[in-house]
């Protein structure tokens, strides 16, 4: 499956169906993240039931503590 993530074209396994699975794929499952799917920001509680599909434009920002 081809996704457009943070401005780049990225190929991810087609077994990934939800935003939660996508975050796990990028090892972001333990991070606090903000996800935008096709220009709509998602509520965190909806990550598990929100599907991703070929061609989606996704922005992922994760919070870090360092400074």
């Amino acid at each position: 499956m081809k996704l457009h993530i943070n401005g780049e074209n990225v190929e991810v396994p087609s077994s990934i169906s939800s935003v939660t699975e996508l975050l796990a794929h990028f090892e972001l499952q333990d991070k606090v993240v903000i996800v935008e799917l096709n220009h709509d920001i998602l509520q965190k509680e909806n990550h598990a039931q929100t599907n991703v599909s070929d061609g989606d434009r996704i922005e992922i920002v994760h919070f870090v503590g360092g400074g």
Partner: protein
Amino acid sequence: MSDRYSRQTLFTPIGEKGQELISRKHVLLIGAGALGTGNAEALVRAGIGKLTIVDRDYVEWSNLQRQQLYHEADAANRMPKAIAAEKRLKEINSEVNVVAHVMDVTTEEIEQLVQGVDLILDATDNFDTRLLVNDISQKYQIPWIYGACVGSYGLSYTIFPGKTPCLNCLLETVPLGGATCDTVGIISPAVQMVVAYQMTEALKILVEDEEALRNKLVSFDLWKNQHTAINVNRAKKESCKSCGSHPTYPYLSAGSHTKTAVLCGRNTVQIRPPEPKKLHLDQLAETLKKQGGEIDLNPFLLNFKMGDHRMVIFKDGRVLVHGTKDIAEAKNLYHRYMG
């Protein structure tokens, strides 16, 4: 001296009027590490009226790769960061009123620190302090600018009370230490990029050009060539306890305030006494020497090495116990030597 700010006033969105505004503003900068030194230098060069800089740590050799105000002597002498930064900043621009505090910022300190402040800049390394800053910002309606970085990644967001969502809206939960502790290193351009984002937003706020604010959560990875900006206005929550319709400022309540803290990625535990003390470090040095430890001392702190352990004791009674992440072990050592 008269053309000191000429290149900045020639920049139309600032101009002479903006410069005059900058020269009357007071910024509180929390943290004097990588982001703190970058922002502090930029603010002081820009001619900020007053800069208050607060930090709880001292300069180490590993800081010199990216913490731009410090040099080798600061690391060799273990100078408190706030003090070393103040000295350098006053050399850069003697017109600026620079005030430095060597302290850990919790509830009591932040209430004092924000008096008369126009803008708070975040240069901390932890979410406990950031959520404290976030609550005080809402309570007194002072804007603040979040910034953070790790590796080649960084992000920033400007929180404007009454307009934007706050950090508590965006996070929902406090990120766990392990998920954000920075053990993967950092390259200086990632720091500089975050400083650039924070400082530009700061200048907009200081010259009161709110129309120009970015209004987006921005992030980048310089090594992976990625850049993202998300409009997060929809994340603002009416029910938010920090910025919603019935705020309780949960992180300002004394309960949230910890007496011990594991310093991120540092293998170090900080222990604070219940009340700040005024220690006589030279007397303490004598006592500790009798116990057989190695001591060295500067006017601000005492470094004490005993066997495998090392403790740094500040005048206000705070102790950094190095070589452990275990709070119980750190407390043990603290009580053994500090009573």
